[in-house]
């Protein structure tokens, strides 16, 4: 989550160089960080409970959404760089 927040701050730093399209990158990065923040308490509780009963189900959705956010950031970044 903190990595995504840091990345979103860096994207804002490059707003003067790349213009408004960089706000898309900021929105994706900050949005992903916010989603992680809002769900982390539930996920931490589930993990802690799972460890105590020795069974933790893999959270496929969270992994795929996080990876999708990275791919989306890359695709948008390439668009911004090529359009500059």
């Amino acid at each position: 989550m903190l990595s995504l927040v840091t990345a979103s701050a860096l994207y804002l730093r490059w707003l003067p160089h790349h213009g408004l399209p960089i706000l898309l990158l900021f929105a994706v990065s900050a949005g992903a960080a916010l989603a992680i923040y809002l769900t982390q308490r539930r996920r931490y509780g589930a993990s802690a409970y799972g460890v105590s009963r020795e069974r933790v189900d893999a959270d496929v959705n969270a992994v795929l959404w996080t990876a999708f956010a990275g791919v989306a950031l890359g695709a948008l970044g390439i668009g911004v760089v090529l359009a500059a």
Partner: protein
Amino acid sequence: MTNSQDAPDGGAPPRGRLAERLLPGGEEPDPRFTLANERTFLAWIRTSLALLAGGIAIEAFTSDLFLEPVRKGLAVVLLLLGMLLSAGAALRWLRVERSMRHKAPLPLPLIVPLLAGAGAVAAAVVLVFVLWR
């Protein structure tokens, strides 16, 4: 990034449809291994984010160092690598999770040579242009 709920009858709780589809069969591995697999996935995602941010930075701040085509090329290479790492991290997480569920040997990390090779190429390009300039 984990889920766990007890079934009403005290047996194994039902898994989600996506989990059943992508991680079929086998049995839940030791929770420490599942959590370690997630930590490894998140470490790859952090690397990917660094590359994604670095790609934009190269394009923004190296105009006095590189010619425009080189600058854009390096930025696109870094951004592509970040994208591939994100997707590769998810695929590796899936493959490792499947292997653990079936008590099979863990797969080789294919994204390690990808990152090493692309990193070496990018470093070589930068070195050539810094020396040549």
